[in-house]
């Protein structure tokens, strides 16, 4: 007791130690950060992981998804209804943007993944400026439905925001849907066939171009879903995409390409790591520590958590 009082007197702010409730609520915070990471990275896991296309404009697709909510709310006054309608609409809007991007540019660059990175970065700049010119430079506001602005009381100390619960549910549902599509549908089988051996798939009569476009449609559409989710917790503005894109790529890289489970696990692990370190230190320190952890991890597993083994020379 005395020692505790002494320590408290010496530190500038009275730290209360780490009660269980803090650990639990930080754990959930980490899970919810992870859910956001997962949602924004999921589309990338498909386009980068399955097709080896680095789409830096993915962040701007997310932005487009968020603006879709804003546009819908101009005509649909009910926040809840507009949010639910926004999910499929955003998916379609950003999915189409993805297909257009694939057809116009990315198709010419499949042999040059690094060039794809730069080209899509350019596209992202253009989309950002277009958003500024269409919607204005300031952020726009959307209203969240009342059932998503409150929180759920777990215990006296632990409160979980309902928007975060919604995002967690949305992320898990998106993963499940994607898994089902990939594992059980004929489209999924075709996507996996193209990923594993593009030439063989082409020889066996698969229209690889069509499969690529469909994959890109789904991957980009998932960005739209992420955009809808982000309106609940963050700003909706032209720059919202740039702030998240690097982290999203790190998740996919660390997770290992070609497999969704890596992305899922790494999103949650990084989220929890970030929230725990951030609680104990500061945001800046946490960001640097997470980077160091990632480099260290890639020392151990340079190809990420899970990899598809191939015998190719490269």
């Amino acid at each position, binding site marked *: 007791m005395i020692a505790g009082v002494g320590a408290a007197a010496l530190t*500038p*702010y*009275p730290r*209360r130690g780490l009660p269980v409730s*803090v650990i639990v*609520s*930080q754990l959930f*915070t980490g899970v*919810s*950060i992870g859910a*956001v990471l997962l949602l924004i990275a999921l589309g990338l896991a498909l386009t980068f992981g399955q097709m080896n296309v680095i789409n830096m404009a993915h962040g701007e697709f997310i932005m487009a998804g968020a603006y879709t909510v804003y546009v819908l709310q101009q005509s649909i006054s009910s926040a809840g209804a507009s949010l639910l309608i926004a999910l499929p609409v955003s998916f379609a809007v950003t999915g189409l943007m993805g297909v257009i991007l694939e057809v116009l540019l990315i198709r010419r660059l499949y042999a040059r993944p690094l060039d794809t990175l730069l080209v899509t970065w350019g596209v992202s700049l253009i989309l950002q*400026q277009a958003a*500024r010119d269409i919607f204005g*430079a*300031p*952020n*726009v*506001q*959307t*209203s*969240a439905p009342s059932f998503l*602005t*409150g*929180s759920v009381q777990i215990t006296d100390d632990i*409160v979980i*925001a*309902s*928007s*975060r619960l919604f995002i967690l549910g949305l992320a898990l549902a998106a993963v499940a849907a994607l898994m089902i599509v990939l594992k059980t549908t004929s489209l999924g089988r075709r996507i996996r066939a193209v990923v594993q051996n593009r030439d063989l798939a082409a020889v066996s009569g698969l229209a690889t171009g069509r499969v690529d476009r469909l994959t890109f449609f789904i991957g980009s559409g998932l960005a739209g879903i992420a955009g809808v989710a982000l309106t*609940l*917790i*963050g*700003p*909706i*503005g032209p*720059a*919202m995409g*740039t*702030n*998240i894109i690097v982290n999203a790529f790190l998740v996919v890289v660390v997770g290992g390409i070609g497999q969704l489970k890596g992305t899922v696990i790494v999103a949650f692990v990084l989220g929890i790591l*970030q*929230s725990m370190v*951030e*609680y104990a230190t*500061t*945001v*800046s320190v946490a*960001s640097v520590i997470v980077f160091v952890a990632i480099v260290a991890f890639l020392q151990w597993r340079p190809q990420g958590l899970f990899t598809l083994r191939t015998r190719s020379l490269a």
Partner: protein
Amino acid sequence: MFKNRVATALVALSAVTALTACGAKTADTAGSAPAGGGAAVDTSGPTVKVGLLNSLSGTMAISEVTVRDAIQLAVEEINTAGGVLGKQLTAVSEDGASDWPTFAEKAQKLISQDKVAAVFGCWTSSSRKAVKPVFEKNKALLFYPVQYEGLEQSPYIFYTGATTNQQIVPALDYLKSTGKTSVYLVGSDYVFPRTANKIIKAYAAANGMKVLGEDYAPLGSTEFSTIVNKVKASGASAVFNTLNGDSNVAFFKEYKSAGLTAESMPVVSVSIAEEEVKSIGTQYLAGQLTAWNYYQTTEGAANERFVKAYKAKYGADKPTSDPMEAAYTSVYLWKAMAEKAGSFDIEKVKAAANAGGITYEAPEGLVTVDGATQHVFKTARIGKIGSDGLIEEVWNSGEPVKPDPYLKSYSWATGLS
């Protein structure tokens, strides 16, 4: 062989140029600044140029474009009313692109290419710090219209926004007077919040207030769940918020989700004006507090005229805010200085201002230039954000507060500068 020859030639060449091109050593000029007037102002034609230096692209464009608009409004009004000293003003607008070295580059361009009589603009402290040496070196004038962290006094800058004792200190006084005994500090990771928080901590120590925590998020950061958890766990009686831009949106959404309200734990913000309220949403902000020197609702005929003129020019849905008003005012203050000096010459304009007595009936109320500090007397105002998106004043300092950028008149602040 060949390569070596080229290399030798190059080294020789550069040695020769370096030797022949030696200019002044630092020791030569120290203390003996060249006498005479400042930067050459081009007054040869029927018009005189003024520079507008704002970020029109990049992350800061959100805020700075509105400031540019306000400056342009003032320039147009002045031209309509006959100009300054018989000359019409031509506004030369440059884009700082939210990038500090670009600000320095454009400032240099306005001074040496366009030969402007004065430059109005800059928002972030970083951009001001980047251009400060440019203005001092060229002996040109900058009018800086945004509230800032103080601790600065450049002979070539006029500060028309609030310094800390006209915004932060009054906000703390207000919190203290309403019985708040502890605060949590949340800010973006840059100069203003860190300096402001240092002042807050010194104030708190001297006034029996507890600072229960201090957190910074990188500029542009939109993940606030952990910080809000910390804020909530601290049980502070108020939050002092110096977050900037996008971060505010994420912070207030998270704040509300965590079940925190303006009643249970009010947030005082010093970077949220009418424009930001609009983009964050009153759903999240209603009831929270702000500290400024001007609101769109501020009473007085001057403000009614300003708001009407602004909306007529830029749209009825465009709110006016403190930095816009300070920028608008700064053009009129410069006009008053030039007219008093009877010249556009920079040293003469400065001398006229420093002699004191430059006043202007601004939208925020009467402002007076403090010749000693080149800051402005301003009335501090605490406001409450309403559900209509406007900010209603709940307290003011009664009279314009004398600017004190180094807080020399506050005993608790002795260790700060």
